[in-house]
């Protein structure tokens, strides 16, 4: 349903090919598509309007570089403007204060505050060599304090003892006191989830802020948040004062327009992003990647990183060595298929590739899905070791046996063999590209039939 912005603009500009400068009419027509793309990505309406006005100013009269189409030109202008609006440089956590430095975590229920608190604590401990204390001020959700205590155990970060019946402000005081006495560098204060329109709870958060004077007040927001992001960010900023934003669940497939909305209405930087369930899955914010995502242009860097994270390094190196010697066999192909599945299957990988939406639709209609990959693994699994090493052994008889063994047809086996040959040929060509190049070409090749 989310069509690539470049494709959309391509349609608009198809008839404009070859013109010199972007006229007002061209730009306006293109910007209608941009507007729609941003809205589908959950960028708040008010922010979309301001943003579009900014792009319009920049785009009109702009010379179209020879090598690109007007559509691509507009996409580039939009992309650049988006990166600038999101903040072009990464922003660090501010620890410039007298230790223990208090950091306050706030946000709606279920946005991921507690998990983020543990991730941040681990990051500050490992990367910045800080002595960190975590304290849960969430006295409302059942077992919330217990959750942080367990996370403390998992990460090896100290947590404040739980005293039943104590209120949030008192807990905050106690945390700061212990921080001072025991010489902690940073005290992370995890608060209860609260609605931005709940005056009582917002007042409580403000009281915690006044009691601790935090160096950072981080607003934790789910990347899937819709139009409400503006209300949430505005209210939290006005009532508590936000110094930075943490976006969670960026490892999902939401387009993340909320990032732009919040940045635009609060002017506060997005400092960190949450990328998974593991306690080390926290990263600094890269505006260009989120920009690409919001526009539906894919996230190449994310794909490569995901590949690197999923593919066992050893296995990849072994593969690289074999390929260099021209020894890519069916076992290696099976291992690539397995890795592809682990990366979230075709769907998961394709979502990250730019301009792939069209291909994806074709694959959907051709019913090429993850079952195909599984079936191919089964076919290879039904071969003997010797056959897997030397594909030339596969005569008609053997192919029939393999088809029967894997519950497929001889045509399926033939198709796999053909695909393997094609891959092996490609592998030879790219072997000099090294490990990363190999991996990418290998995967790209799997999409061909």
């Amino acid at each position, binding site marked *: 349903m989310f069509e690539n912005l470049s494709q959309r603009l391509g349609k608009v500009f198809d008839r404009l090919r070859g013109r010199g400068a972007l006229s007002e009419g061209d730009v306006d027509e293109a910007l209608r598509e941009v507007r729609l793309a941003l809205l589908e990505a959950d960028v*708040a309406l008010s922010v979309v309007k301001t943003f579009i006005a900014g792009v319009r100013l920049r785009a009109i009269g702009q010379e179209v570089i020879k090598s690109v189409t007007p559509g691509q030109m507009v996409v580039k202008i939009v992309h650049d403007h988006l990166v600038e609006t999101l903040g072009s440089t990464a922003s660090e956590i501010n620890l410039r204060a007298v230790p223990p430095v208090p950091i306050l975590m706030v946000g709606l229920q279920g946005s991921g505050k507690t998990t983020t608190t543990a991730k941040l604590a681990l990051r500050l401990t490992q990367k910045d060599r800080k002595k960190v204390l975590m304290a849960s001020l969430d006295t409302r959700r059942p077992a919330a304090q217990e*959750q942080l205590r367990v996370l403390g155990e998992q990460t090896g970060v100290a947590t404040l003892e739980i005293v039943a019946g104590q209120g949030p402000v008192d807990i905050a005081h106690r945390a700061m006191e212990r921080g001072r006495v025991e010489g902690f560098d940073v005290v992370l204060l995890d608060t209860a989830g609260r609605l931005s329109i709940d005056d009582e709870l917002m007042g409580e958060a403000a009281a915690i802020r006044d009691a601790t004077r935090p160096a950072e007040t981080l607003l934790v927001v789910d990347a899937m948040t819709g139009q409400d992001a503006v209300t949430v960010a505005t209210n939290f900023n006005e009532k508590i004062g936000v110094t930075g934003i943490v976006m969670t*669940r960026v490892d*999902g*497939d939401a387009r993340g327009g909320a990032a732009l909305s919040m940045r635009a209405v609060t002017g506060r930087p997005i400092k960190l992003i949450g990328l998974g369930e593991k306690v080390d899955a926290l990263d600094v914010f890269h505006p260009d990647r989120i920009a690409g995502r919001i526009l539906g242009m894919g996230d190449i860097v994310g794909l490569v990183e995901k590949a690197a994270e999923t593919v066992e390094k050893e296995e990849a190196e072994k593969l690289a060595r074999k390929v260099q010697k021209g020894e890519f066999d069916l076992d290696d192909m099976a291992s690539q298929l397995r890795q592809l599945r682990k990366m979230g299957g075709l769907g998961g990988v394709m979502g990250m590739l730019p301009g792939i939406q069209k291909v994806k639709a074709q694959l959907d209609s051709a019913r090429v899905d993850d079952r195909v990959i599984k079936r191919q693994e089964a076919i290879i699994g039904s071969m003997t070791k010797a056959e897997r090493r030397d594909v030339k052994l596969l005569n008609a008889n053997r192919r029939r046996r393999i088809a029967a063994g894997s519950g497929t047809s001889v045509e399926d086996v033939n198709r796999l063999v053909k695909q393997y040959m094609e891959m092996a040929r490609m592998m030879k060509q790219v072997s000099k590209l090294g490990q990363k190049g190999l991996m990418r070409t290998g995967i790209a090749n799997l999409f061909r039939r």
Partner: protein
Amino acid sequence: MASWFQRLKTGLARTTTRLVDSIGAALGRKRVDAATLDELEEALIAADLGPSVAAKLVAKLRQRKWDGEVEVDTVKRALADDIAAILAPVAVPFAIDPTRRPHVTLVVGVNGSGKTTTIGKFAERLGREGRKVVIAAGDTFRAAAVAQLEIWASRAGAECIRGADGSDPAALAYQALERAQTIGADALLIDTAGRLHNKADLMAELQKLIRVLRKRDASAPHRILLVLDATTGQNAIQQVEIFKQLVEIDGLILTKLDGSARGGVLVAIAERFALPVVAVGVGESADDLAAFDPKQFADALLGVGT
């Protein structure tokens, strides 16, 4: 029931204020012209209905040929009726089938959508109706999720089956079903760990849980409910689509409607998937789980009186 509606209304009233403000502003001039309709469309987008559904609804409104001066309320009424008409077929209240003992409900969703709280509320409600309830604390991944559910279970007078942290949720679900059968429980509610729909491994884990349950009772689970957060934007559509593809979702629950988010994406979802909406969450206590009333939802969304 009345108190639920009241709560839903107060919850939605807050939700509605801004939308109503913008629609009120849009219709101040009392002539339904193109600009008015555009502003109306934007108000719908701001309520998370999504650009395409908003455009469709407004196109329908445009076709009505408004002549001359029109009351603001008339246009809003028409829009609310259109939205209620889309939602009407999907309003199916949660009820357990007494012929199934225990009636097995599996609750799934992305992280932080409110699964555990929803289960707690359901348990308490069923407990009050005098039903015997067993809860399976199937979120063995998130730290202390089990402890959270145990507190709910004790409030509801339900038995809570738990495993060690990090244990296999499928085995735990099986064990809970066994226990529920042994004690002759009316309902078994199975909580699951939050999972993003694009994580293949975690979705496979969910499929396994269902397979394992069926070894004990071939008809289980009798209902699989997907919990959606009203704060979520257009990604909710993606969530429904993928969860539905991989496990047979029978119904939806929209939580956190007491916030400032309007949950308008539900309209798009209703149009596209026609999945029943069995309940909405409008607060943190057990009474804050209300039956989904489309007319009230649409009316409250647009701030028109009933």
